[in-house]
């Protein structure tokens, strides 16, 4: 059992961190919460640990968001991830461009409805349609529809910003 959990930890930790990061926008916090998720999994010994882990991660992220609102802390996009694998050195110009692009993606993601965003992030974290359905309460058949809409809206929202930027520059 512990071995199962340990394996799950090795294979999904990174995905859980990524999933959480897109909700809390803080690498350290995301990692801390991800560890908390697995700590709880150790205590609960869930039957379906994989979906359980993401469900708990989603709940923790929600609590975190509420706490953040209470603290009136502004969410800031972290510039770089200190713990992740070394990223190639960038020139200041490149860094600025990269940050702008990240901010655009973040805004595009924020433009989605909560449900669309959740489904998209769960899919991106590697969950299957039935797992996403179980967690969000959607019918399995509706996951594809939601995902289709979410993908289109994300890309549209991103492209719209690009266009606005071009219009502003020209």
């Amino acid at each position, binding site marked *: 059992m512990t071995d199962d959990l340990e394996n799950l930890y090795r294979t999904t930790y990174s995905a859980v961190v990524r999933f959480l990061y897109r909700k809390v926008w803080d690498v350290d916090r995301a990692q801390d919460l991800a*560890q908390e998720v697995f700590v709880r999994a150790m205590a609960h010994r869930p039957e379906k640990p994989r979906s359980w882990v993401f469900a708990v991660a989603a709940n923790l992220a929600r609590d975190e968001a509420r706490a953040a609102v209470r603290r009136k802390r502004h969410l800031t996009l972290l510039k770089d991830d200190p713990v992740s*694998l070394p990223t190639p050195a960038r020139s200041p110009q490149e860094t600025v461009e990269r940050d702008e692009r990240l901010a655009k*993606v973040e805004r595009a993601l924020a433009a989605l409805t909560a449900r669309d965003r959740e489904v*998209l992030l769960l899919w991106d974290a590697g969950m299957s349609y039935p797992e996403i359905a179980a967690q969000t309460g959607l019918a399995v058949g509706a996951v594809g529809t939601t*995902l289709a809409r979410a993908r289109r809206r994300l*890309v549209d929202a991103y492209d719209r910003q690009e266009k606005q930027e071009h219009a502003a520059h020209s």
Partner: protein
Amino acid sequence: MRHIPEEELHANLDQALSRSQCVEIESHLAGCRRCRMQRDDIAALRDRTTALLSSLGPTTTLPPPFEVIRARHDRAQQLRRRWVVAGAWAASVVLALAGGWGVDQWLHGSAAIAEARTAVSRQPGIDRPAGVALPIATPSGPAVHALVHSARNRKAMPEPAVAWSPAQKAASPFSAQAPLAGADSSRSPGTEPLDTSTGEQLALEVFSLPNYSPLSNLDGLWRTVPLAYGENTPVSQVPHVAGLPVVQVQVQKASPEGEITAVEQQLATGEVIRTIEGPASKVSALLAHRDEAGPQNGADSSSSPQKGDMTLTVRSGDRMLAVTGPSTVLGSLMSRVNLRRRY
């Protein structure tokens, strides 16, 4: 021929369809250019979404060793256990206090309090106040420490032989002494029926209290009141830990909010538990000040707060009740809780 809806193409690319559905879609795509183009668009959209999202997050994050999780889990469990124990302990103390209070109210009327070690016996059929005593383990054996409540008719009751005034206190608070009798005996020498008129029979045994030295380390002007605290405020209505002999009741006028009472009660071991009740701000200020004052305050070293003193407070509205005592004594309850959990 039906074209393939968008969401099914998504699901197909996401490998979320059954084998038969896949076969159906593939065979349709083979013969339908329009759906093939749409499939390619969706594949491109899907790839872009993935690319956009992956640019967001931290890149691959190496998980810390699993031992980190295991250690965190162990720590969380320990913390949880501690909370459970502390919660159970606090609950039982509150219960004991509330019980004591309640029984005092129930026994209403004037009360005499034996400030010495006493044993109470009652006629069968009359319930003894149950569960009101802090179940404190005393090394001196199973002697019963009890508060003696008088019957409802005060007139019929002789003045308690052991009641003492501040003047008496200056000399020896426990001049009335009786030989140590067996705790189970209700009819031992020194037993004196207090009241027979109400059908209740109370027996009072008086013992000497060793090691008692009055505490005098509370700030401010205090008035030590006789144990039978006047007509209007019987001691039974002053908060205290039921089941322990009261050694001193002090009152401080705390302007408009009312007065603060401090009741001291002693265990067989000589240790003193003090219950302070009054306006919350006054009580907490008192406690804070006492802690600062430290052991150098007061001439009598044994009267100073010990290092191991512990304070438990219960707040209700703007009133506060604080019980202070040596942590070893208050803690004995906690160890019982522990014991129960262990087995």
